């Protein structure tokens, strides 16, 4: 297991992993905070370190369209975007999945306008959660690096053939310089394997027609087949991640857990905040609290059954959502977790919080406060509110239309 430790930002780690895939085509358009990936990759191309066709598109919409064309033409394809870029791509994001074209896209998570904001939240990825892409949320640069490789394998699996997104927090991870363990080019390539095209538009001996019009009599069958592909991804992900462990020594599940097994109070969150929470868990554990973390790695396919059984017997759960699903009065992750628990007959009080939108900070103390609140739920037997709370929002007085918050976390810190 020959590995090298380098100090890299999340974006640099992703660019490096992308280079090691030896993609045929990379197409992208710059957007903060994704830009670093494409800048680094451009240097690789410019210095001849990789022979990829780097297509610098005039928009994200075109970048994704180029990826779709290239993938149809028998190529391994990668791209990266963020926020508004993903929003602009969205139309073609669905088409890539519908045409069952493998590719990997790094999504440096950033808030969606308006108002304009360049900082981290998960609204961008959540906007396309139903598009038929595999979505992996990473907690740090190491996971982002590893996940590019894993996602590529899974995406290209013949029974899957779905595009995959590797999501990681803008700035918190993308611009944060940390040590990252890097595999050799050879071991990456032996793990990922050479690209085997499921379709090849350039095969003129067997001319393909791709992207035909499927009407009422066929469309439903294609969508059903796509749902099955996602099921296949759920089935294959553990095996591919196990193969990755053998190559790298790093072990990944459908979700990452931290001191979860005997925990009574559980925090569920996507992305880097779940690493911050580990520190809090350690502190509370040493004070005798039974607390733990569950960080879903795969948001699509969502490991409903596995996640539900891991939560059997827990006393209270806080689900932190770095995105809102306006009008559902619950964040997207909250909806997923509540639905999974309901379907599996797991009855645990779930407190959902929308936090950190537009990069709003969340501290260790804040997370500690959340665990205190979970404890209060258990001790008093009060059910958490049905609707999500907006964590850390400035609330006006009642006479100004402000609502009496169910919890004032800051008061619980002491």
């Amino acid at each position, binding site marked *: 297991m020959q590995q090298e430790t380098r100090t890299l930002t999340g974006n640099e780690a992703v660019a490096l992993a992308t280079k090691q895939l030896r993609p*045929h*085509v990379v*197409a992208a358009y710059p957007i903060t905070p994704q830009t670093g990936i494409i800048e680094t990759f451009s240097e690789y191309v410019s210095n001849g370190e990789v*022979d*990829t*066709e780097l*297509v*610098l*598109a*005039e*928009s994200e*919409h*075109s*970048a994704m*369209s*180029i*990826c*779709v*064309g*290239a*993938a*149809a*033409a*028998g*190529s391994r*394809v990668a791209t990266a975007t963020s926020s508004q870029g993903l929003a602009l791509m969205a*139309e*073609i994001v669905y*088409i890539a999945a519908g045409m069952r074209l493998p590719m990997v896209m790094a999504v440096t998570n950033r808030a969606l306008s308006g108002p304009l904001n360049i900082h981290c939240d998960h609204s961008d990825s959540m906007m396309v959660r139903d598009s038929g892409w595999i979505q992996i949320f990473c907690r740090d640069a190491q996971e982002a690096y590893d996940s590019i490789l894993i996602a590529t394998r899974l995406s290209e699996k013949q029974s899957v053939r779905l595009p995959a997104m590797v999501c990681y927090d803008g700035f918190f991870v993308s611009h944060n310089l940390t040590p990252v363990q890097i595999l050799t080019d050879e071991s990456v390539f032996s793990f990922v394997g050479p690209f085997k095209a499921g379709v090849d*538009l*350039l*095969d*003129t001996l067997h*001319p*393909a*027609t*791709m*992207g*035909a*019009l*499927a*009407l009422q009599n*066929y469309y439903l069958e294609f969508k059903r087949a796509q749902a099955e592909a996602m099921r296949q991804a759920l089935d294959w992900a553990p095996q591919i991640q196990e193969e990755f462990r053998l190559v790298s020594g790093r072990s990944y599940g459908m979700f990452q857990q931290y001191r979860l097994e005997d925990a009574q109070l559980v925090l569920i969150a996507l992305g880097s905040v779940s690493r911050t929470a580990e520190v809090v868990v350690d502190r509370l554990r040493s004070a005798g609290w039974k607390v733990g973390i569950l960080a879903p790695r795969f948001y699509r396919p969502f490991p409903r059954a596995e996640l539900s059984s891991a939560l059997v017997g827990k006393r209270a759960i806080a689900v932190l959502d770095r995105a809102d699903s306006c009008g559902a009065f619950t964040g997207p992750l909250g909806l997923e977790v509540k639905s999974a628990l309901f379907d599996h007959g797991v009855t645990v009080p779930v407190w959902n919080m929308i936090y950190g939108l537009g990069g709003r900070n969340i501290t260790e103390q804040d997370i500690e406060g959340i665990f205190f609140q979970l404890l209060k739920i258990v001790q008093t037997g009060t059910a958490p509110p049905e609707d999500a709370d907006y964590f850390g929002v400035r609330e006006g007085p009642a006479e100004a239309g402000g609502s009496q918050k169910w919890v004032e976390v800051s008061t619980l810190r002491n």
Partner: protein
Amino acid sequence: MGRSLNLKELTRETPPLGPGHRLCAGCTASAIVRLVLMAADRPVVVVNATGCLEVATTVYPYTAWNMPWMHNAFENAAATVSGIEAAYRVRMRRGELREPLYFVAFGGDGGTYDIGLQSLSGALERGHRFVYVCYDNEAYMNTGIQRSSSTPLGSWTTTTPVGSVTVGKSTRRKDLTAIISAHRIPYVAQCAISHHMDLMRKARKAFDATGPAFLNILSPCVPGWRIEPSDTVRVSQMAVDTCFWPLFECEEGKLRVTVQPKEKKPVQEYFQIQGRYRHLLRPEHEALVAKMQQEVDQDWQRLKEGRIL
């Protein structure tokens, strides 16, 4: 070099686009496609923007295409073909492919003048080697004849009706061919279905070009222009004879008129054979017609002088 553009010889080959498609009786798009593709002396990979041509030729599980063909979306045919061409280049470089190929994107005027203009401009600027063909029927025909930026002044469409306050489209069409030529790509031309040998020769030049090439082809539309299905070629001929749709090419920046009408006819003769312009023949629109004639004359003069703008 390459294969001959002799029609007799071309009849022996499998047509690039076969029968059983569901385009209107009399539609000119399929003949345009065949003429362009038959001019290629290598296998061609086709990309098609959303539109009549696309939906009517590939209704699952059928395809009328006899060559590799792909549809992605409406506004991104040029971007999609860029991706395919990029894949081709790297796969050739890596020795995964050996066969030289051509790449063509077909889009209607909606997908080219309007929603796809940015994607086309980007692809041209990046220098991908492909031919973009706009089959220009001067409105959104796939959705039922709505105006596009290619719709000429005064023309009836369902969104520019002939009413008591407004009469057809109130603005001039966009000069897309000039916009494309401003990208300084090696080959740009305007063609018409009625002048099929001129069209094929231009298609051949477009394929031979060292970079991106663009063909803007007038494509009369039976329901949209309110003409008889048998009249399409005649109407196209009249568009050229009146210089309403001049035929020219711009090769490495050098502009040349390729078809000079024997006798330049007044635009009324073009208007009177199409239902979409019939209202212009009423006496109250004389001034508008005179203005249109003047614009046609000015454009024609400029082209003859070798200037596109």
